[in-house]
């Protein structure tokens, strides 16, 4: 029997975090109470576009408990009225003369308690002159459109154009392709709606040092942005990201509330708390998606894919606040060639301003990977149908084969590893695909609408290699610092910050395996910029590919030093020592060995001559490549002919995320991600009316799936390790959100395909299906 270490890689270790959460002892931002703390609230714009002609705070200041108001003009005096977005655009902290979207923060009110702050915010009178509103990006590109950002030199709502691939070659090959399908797809604007909204507590100490407890997924990046924007010395800023009640990308940007809380804390000399209400969050936190896609896909008449061409209009609201790597204004949308070896491909995206809140951030998937995976997997189904092939058979015929890895995609990505057919075969076996097709044929004879949908997605996570990836110039490395104490207990700190992913558990598992120390003797700390090494944070499924790798590499640095100490203790040369069965052994003499705990004690009490005391290491890991998780999902739906309601009967998800650190946590990540794939497919969307009124600013109208909508997920795994990651792991959190929507929509379209239906834009509400059934004379 081979040796094991308790809590090592591959074990379903119970989560360390849970001990506090199940007792209600988590420490979230709104739980923080400081002596003398004040509360901040905002008066917001009811208009989507208007000139501010007067601000009258007098009535607010009369309210007992209201202490101060802050306006854009106050901030302008300190050059803080504007701030940069992570995409090098600019956005307002508070407006000076014009509001750009409904719900925009206009005046901040500081009060003794949250009720007085809310009363004060309601009592501030603001005079507006409404301006024409544009909420449709296609209209925004027309010459007569209202101009959203006259402050920009360009005097146009067009922000940027980005393209990649071989345009002429793609056009040419599409022309020559025997079968071509054109499809328009809209991927609506949605909001991550983590159950905890955004907030912070800002405090200056007597030395002028600023501490901000903040709902942020990227505390170090925030510290640097604060230093650059506010001109504070960076060593005088401490960002603490306490427990976070869900992030999903919504807690990456810098929001006006954070900045104003800091200003208010400085001006009042008191700690200041700002916590959004849900309505505030839905109206003004950054949004995801809003991609208007127009695509052409080609293949031969026997179903071999040839070329792919995609044109997209991206609605960014009034500011491009995406958290993409700087070089990629459309994120990693060019992963859109998916699991297939296209000969030629071309992608272009145009970013557009509209009178909506800043858009372009994540929804459990950063960098536009969902938009890409949804598009290609929808297109594959449509072209398979046109060729007359079963969608599974079509995919099997076209997949990049396992032996082709590392594989260079038509748009320039180098996929590390994959076995796409393996994942699809397992999913088909788990769900008994042939039996489902037989059942479907029977039901069709009876006039029933049952659909089977497949999605065989390829993901790209783990940003990223320094030659390609940076945010505002900062390279997207990740870090780990390990300290082994004399008693053999470990404290490790990371630049990432979990929001439910369970890093305290999974990082200790990596370290347990690498150091031979049981996981319960390892403590993990993240989120405090005073103590953690610099990192870019947790989003885009990057923590395991980058910080997980840093953990393994830092641990191996420790082993290297420890080997010298072990050799000293065992009185042999370091070359005669090997790391085996989680111990240092004299080669060939297993009974002569020292544990890491033995070595740790010696490192402080009896270090080898010429070896520095102590046992610590730090690693800043610059990944050589991205990791490319993948999976195949199969969804079965039944459609109610009378109401148009789509019922997900079964959903099988086979994922391959390389080496699995904790199977229980991976399954949990997949369940949650699937639910956030189901949501935009069938339920969630935020729209605006012609006046710029947001429709969907509460959970009454924004339909986050409940336990009743969410099906009983079935999961399976294949394991194809990443060849370049120290432990072979890839990311997993966002995979299911990326892969699930196409499977669900493909199932719905499959059900309706006998009626000639080729697309229904998501979310597929019952009324949309009912309308189709009605138009086709079924209902």
């Amino acid at each position, binding site marked *: 029997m081979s040796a094991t270490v308790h809590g090592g890689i591959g074990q379903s270790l119970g989560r360390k975090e849970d001990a506090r*959460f*199940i007792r209600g002892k*988590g420490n979230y931002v709104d*739980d923080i109470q400081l002596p003398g703390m004040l509360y901040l609230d905002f008066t917001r714009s009811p208009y989507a576009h208007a000139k501010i002609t007067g601000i009258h705070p007098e009535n607010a200041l009369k309210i007992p408990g209201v202490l101060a108001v802050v306006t854009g003009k106050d901030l302008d005096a300190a050059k803080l009225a504007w701030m940069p977005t992570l995409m090098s655009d600019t956005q307002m902290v508070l407006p000076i003369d014009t509001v750009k979207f409904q719900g925009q923060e206009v005046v901040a009110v500081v009060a003794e308690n949250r*009720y007085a702050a809310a009363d004060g915010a309601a009592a501030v009178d603001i005079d507006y002159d409404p301006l024409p509103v544009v909420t449709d990006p296609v209209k925004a590109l027309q010459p007569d459109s209202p101009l959203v950002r006259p402050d920009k030199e360009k005097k146009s709502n067009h922000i940027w154009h980005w393209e990649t691939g071989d345009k002429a070659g793609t056009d040419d090959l599409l022309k020559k392709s025997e079968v071509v399908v054109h499809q328009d797809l809209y991927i609506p604007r949605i909001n991550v709606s983590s*159950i905890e909204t955004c907030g912070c507590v800002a405090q200056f100490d007597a030395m002028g040092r600023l501490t901000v407890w903040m709902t942020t997924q990227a505390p170090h990046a925030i510290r640097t942005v604060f230093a650059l924007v506010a001109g504070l010395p960076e060593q005088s800023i401490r960002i603490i990201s306490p427990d976070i009640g869900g992030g999903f990308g919504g807690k990456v940007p810098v929001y006006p509330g954070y900045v104003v809380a800091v200003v208010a804390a400085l001006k009042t000399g008191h700690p200041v708390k700002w916590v959004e209400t849900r309505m505030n969050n839905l109206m003004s936190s950054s949004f995801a998606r809003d991609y208007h896609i127009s695509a052409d896909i080609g293949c031969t008449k026997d179903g071999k894919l040839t070329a792919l061409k995609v044109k997209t209009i991206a609605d960014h609201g009034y500011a491009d606040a995406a958290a993409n790597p700087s070089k990629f204004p459309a994120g990693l949308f060019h992963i859109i060639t998916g699991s297939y070896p296209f000969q030629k491909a071309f992608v272009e995206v145009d970013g557009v301003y509209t009178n909506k809140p800043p858009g372009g951030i994540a929804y459990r998937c950063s960098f536009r990977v969902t938009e890409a995976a949804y598009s290609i997997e929808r297109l594959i189904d449509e072209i398979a149908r046109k060729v007359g092939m079963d969608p599974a058979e079509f995919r099997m015929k076209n997949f990049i084969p396992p032996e082709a890895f590392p594989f260079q995609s038509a748009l320039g990505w180098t996929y590390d590893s994959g076995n796409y057919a393996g994942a699809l075969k397992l999913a088909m076996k788990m769900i008994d695909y042939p039996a489902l097709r037989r059942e479907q044929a029977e039901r069709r004879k009876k006039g029933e609408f049952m659909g089977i949908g497949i999605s065989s997605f390829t993901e790209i996570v783990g940003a990223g290699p320094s030659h390609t990836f940076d945010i505002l110039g900062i390279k997207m490395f990740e870090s780990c610092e390990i300290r082994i104490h004399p008693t053999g207990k470990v404290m490790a700190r990371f630049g990432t910050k979990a929001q439910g*992913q369970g890093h305290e558990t999974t990082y200790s598992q990596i370290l347990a395996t690498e150091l031979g120390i049981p996981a319960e003797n390892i403590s993990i700390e993240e989120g405090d910029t005073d103590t953690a090494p610099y990192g870019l944070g947790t989003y885009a499924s990057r923590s395991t590919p980058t910080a997980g790798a840093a953990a393994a590499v830092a641990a191996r640095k420790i082993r290297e030093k420890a080997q010298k100490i072990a050799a000293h203790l065992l009185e042999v040369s370091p070359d005669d020592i090997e790391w085996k069965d989680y111990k240092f052994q004299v080669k060939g003499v297993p009974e002569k060995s020292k544990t890491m705990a033995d070595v740790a004690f010696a490192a402080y009490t009896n270090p080898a001559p010429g070896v520095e005391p102590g046992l610590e290491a730090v690693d800043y890991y610059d990944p050589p490549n991205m990791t490319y998780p993948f999976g195949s999902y199969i969804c079965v739906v039944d459609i109610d002919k009378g109401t148009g309601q789509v019922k997900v009967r079964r959903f099988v998800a086979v994922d391959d995320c390389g080496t699995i650190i904790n199977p*229980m946590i991976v*399954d949990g990540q997949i369940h949650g991600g699937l639910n956030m794939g189901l949501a935009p497919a069938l339920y969630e969307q935020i729209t605006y009316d012609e006046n710029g009124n947001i429709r969907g600013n509460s959970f009454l109208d924004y339909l986050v799936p409940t336990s009743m909508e969410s099906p009983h997920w079935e999961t399976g795994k294949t394991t194809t390790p990443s060849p370049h990651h120290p432990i072979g792991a890839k990311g997993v959190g966002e995979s299911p959100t990326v892969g699930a929507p196409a499977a669900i929509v493909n199932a719905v379209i499959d059900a309706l395909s006998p009626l000639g239906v080729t697309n229904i834009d998501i979310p597929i509400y019952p009324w949309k299906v009912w309308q189709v059934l009605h138009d086709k004379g079924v209902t």
Partner: protein
Amino acid sequence: MASTAIPRLTSPLPIKGAARRIHVTINEVDFDMAVEDRTLLVHFLRDVLGLTGTHIGCDTTHCGACTVLLDGKPVKSCTVLAVQVDGRKIRTVEGLETGGKLHPVQDGFAAEHGLQCGFCTPGMMMTAVALLAKNPNPSEDEIRRAISGNLCRCTGYMNIVKAIQHAAKTQGGKS
């Protein structure tokens, strides 16, 4: 910045004119306190008593993060006024562990990975406690129906269902 002089600060929710005394039992402890009429129960629990395990996730009674038991029944404490609980009994997540022993529902959530970020968890567990008190052996469908007023963004609900089944089993079908 327009401002008034900054006075000495009072409690997080100062008692102003329209206040009244309430007597309430929270997690078996009696409180006799003055509260402002409009103070929400959730703010009374969190800001006045420091029981921050009960969370706030929305303003419209949809998310259920603030669920507590009022005389044994789950209620959303963001939509109950503190003055309404006068003379009644409240149980919050902090009251689940008794004598150093976790409640079976707490054990179930940890054992089955029924939580991730932990924010919806207290409210979700309180709803589960109330369900099991009424129905010691609920089916999956009954569990899903019972927790449908509690939103979770992380787990996809699967493991929450398993956690409640786990608790039902360890309770041995007794409430």
